[in-house]
């Protein structure tokens, strides 16, 4: 499934870029995130509670950042699995400065889910992903100031 969109953050591109790779901040903003720990350069371990349709459960995952080009772009790779299935997402994130204290974040990616969440919740994956991304940025925008 393809995911794309944009969100404008009220900070400069450099701040936005650094904040988007700050585990503590990300953990606060990601819906359902229970922990996010840096386990290597550009690599994080994550525990996250996911709920989709009638199923919910804990996901163990890894987030990896590749192709880092501060402060303008990076690629985000998320992989996770849990008792309710597994997911893999890759996304290209591009930051466009819009003046001194505003940055447009463009994201474009592909999400694949499997297991029970695919069997039971496939019709909701699209809307749930969009909702989670929206919630993430809304929270992020308030904390990044």
């Amino acid at each position: 499934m393809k995911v794309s969109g944009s969100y404008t953050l009220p900070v400069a591109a450099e701040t936005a870029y650094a904040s988007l790779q700050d585990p503590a901040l990300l953990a606060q903003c990601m819906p359902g995130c229970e922990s996010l720990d840096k386990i290597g350069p550009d690599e994080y371990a994550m525990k996250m509670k996911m709920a989709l349709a009638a199923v919910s459960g804990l996901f163990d995952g890894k987030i990896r950042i590749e192709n880092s080009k501060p402060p303008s772009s990076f690629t985000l790779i998320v992989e996770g699995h849990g008792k309710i299935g597994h997911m893999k997402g890759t996304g290209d994130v591009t930051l466009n400065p819009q003046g001194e204290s505003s940055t447009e974040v463009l994201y474009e990616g592909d999400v694949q889910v499997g297991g029970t969440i695919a069997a039971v919740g496939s019709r909701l994956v699209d809307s749930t992903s969009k909702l989670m991304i929206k919630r993430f940025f809304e929270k992020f925008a308030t904390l990044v100031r």
Partner: protein
Amino acid sequence: MATTTVAKTEKLVGKRIRRREDPRLITGTATYVDDIKLPGMLHAMIVRSPYGAARIKGIDTSAASKLPGVTAVYVGKDVVDVGPVPCGASLPGLKVPHHHILAQDRVYFVGHPVAVVIASDKYIAKDAADLVEIDYEPLPAVTDPEKAMTAGAPAVHPEWPDNLAFTYHQDGGDADKAFAEADVVVKQRITSQRLIPTAMECRGVVADYSTGDKALTIYSSTQIPHLLRTLLALMLSQPENKLRVVAPEVGGGFGSKLNVYAEEALMGWAAMRIGKPVKWIESRRENYMCTIHGRGHVDYYEIAAKKDGTILGLKVKIIQDLGAYHQLLTPAIPTLSVLMLPGLYKFQNVKAEIAGVFTNAVPTDAYRGAGRPEATHGIERIVDMLAVELKMDPVEIRTKNFIGNDEFPFKTATGLEYDSGNYALPLKKAMEIIDYAGARREQAEARKQGRLVGIGISTYGEICAFGPSPATPAGGWESALVEVDPTGKVTVYTGSCHHGQGEETTFAQIAADELGVSIEDVVVGRGDTSRIPYGIGTFGSRGTAVGGPALYYALQQLKEKIKKFGAMMLDSPEVEFANGECVCTKSGKTVGLGAIAGASYRAMKLPAGETPGLSVTYFWEPPNFAFPFGAHIAITEVDRDTGHVSVKRYVCVDDCGNIINPLLVDGQVHGGVAQGLGQALYEHAIYDDNGQLLSGELMDYAVPRSTMMPWVESSHTVTPSPVNPLGVKGVGEAGTIGCSPAVVNSVVDALSTLGVKHLDMPLTSEKIWRTINGSAN
């Protein structure tokens, strides 16, 4: 000896008698597999692959094994010596993957069993199953059979990179010549989408091993207890005479339980290993992932005809989505489609090819109609398209090409011999019921108002009464055992293991009529291999059409024996048996069946050359299939704004030969129509490109609800079959086979004013809306 047998004179065959099995079914007092509780019984939960294709790098069962209450956790290497899940079909050059009961180093479809946890209750088993850690390396998957055939597609089985399990060719007549001589050729790609059989009761197994006498009992929700016994004996290396299979009440099968599944062997193996009974009950999600699917055809049709509508020949290429493995009959199903291709028409030139293709999906196999709905849908769609091309009425083109009443038995281009038929008759009757001319006038009026109203016809034939043994993989005969016990009560045991079809009623009607006893005095037993002579089972509309004649002949032999005892007891050779008693035609003296039965077991005296007791076993081999037929007409209206299809009227006239019980025939047709309508409008088992089943539960897989069903106006014509003494033909699949082309032809007719020539099922509102709005797909 005392007897309470009540003689009766009123014939029951042909009467609308309510099903005797229904009270226990609708009051919740029937015994299904899940109702079986044995002392010390353990519960199994199966850990299944969440990937369409993956390598298993490691399995860690330690945490699961340590959970209190867990008896055992088994993985692939534990069961490597159990024989493979069998494929009963043989085709030249067929590639048969070794189908282990638990995955070894690789998984091939979502739901593939990888490990089994056995625990003291099912909740502990589920918790422990969640603790089994499996390290998968995901691999690319392929689920679209046409994509699977393209170069570079992921190989489902690495040893066969072209994903081709078999190819099959069948020619009848000279199709190339027919096409060369044709005035018109119409071509269309026609699909029959993957469907999920959705029996109300999912599968379930209880395995009980007696360590004392080393005997295994398997309770399974199956349509074929004896075949299952034989094949499980081979898989488990358990002597067949120490293996008993019981099919208790079975809550629907539709072909999905005409199989031997990994779980049946796995539970048997585990019970033998542990020495305690083990139960496994399939959840609905497992049922959708792991129990066979049906259909899965992509077919390329070409029909050749003369300008006057005379059909000359047909060429068809069938691409069958097999899934990842062959279940019992998987590769054989599309060969039934080939047999059915000529439908009711007399053309003698057919060229058919099948490509059987592996995909990363659960195997397809027999689902109500099994190959015949696909072919009937194809021929009935392409004949309609030919009618449009030639600007002929769909009725006219059909009647012009029907096999004539004087041409039976009729040899088809695909090698069948149709037993009897009067193909124009049900069509004529259906047209009268629906007022065809009036309906066309109303359609013209509606079109003037801009409404999208369609009339669709399907005239179907089907192959029933499976079948003569040479045409089946495991024998096509059926058995019956009739016993009159010493008190005169009658028990009928049938090898055709009915599971909702109602033979408990119809077979009792037959026995009651032949023996002249009350239906209350007849019990019909089934499903337990320890009580019933070897039998084949119920599928392919064979219960009444093959099991019925076996019963009939057993009853005739029994009657002869009864007459001999009667003659002895009345001391006269001039004896007739009727209405439950023997009558001496000279003296008028009588002796009742109860007294005769008592005397036969007491055996103070026996007729010359006779044995004691009143018990006859009969195995009947049918000389041919039986070929029912019929006509279905659907009037539909499409909502221009939403694309929603409403079935305004649905008329079906089926000819299944003689009718034992019209109420049950109607029930079979109505249920069949529900499943045909499901395929036509709603149902679709959808896998994504990674092999994830997206329609994985009833929230996403649209089985028709009662509000989605039209009022089915069903009627019958009667053309007896000469193949069996009852003159019956079979009706279990008729509704499903006849329905989908009638509905799709109707919707295409409704949309023809917009230039639509063909649509593939299911005709969901979205698909129709997109078609109307010019953005198909």
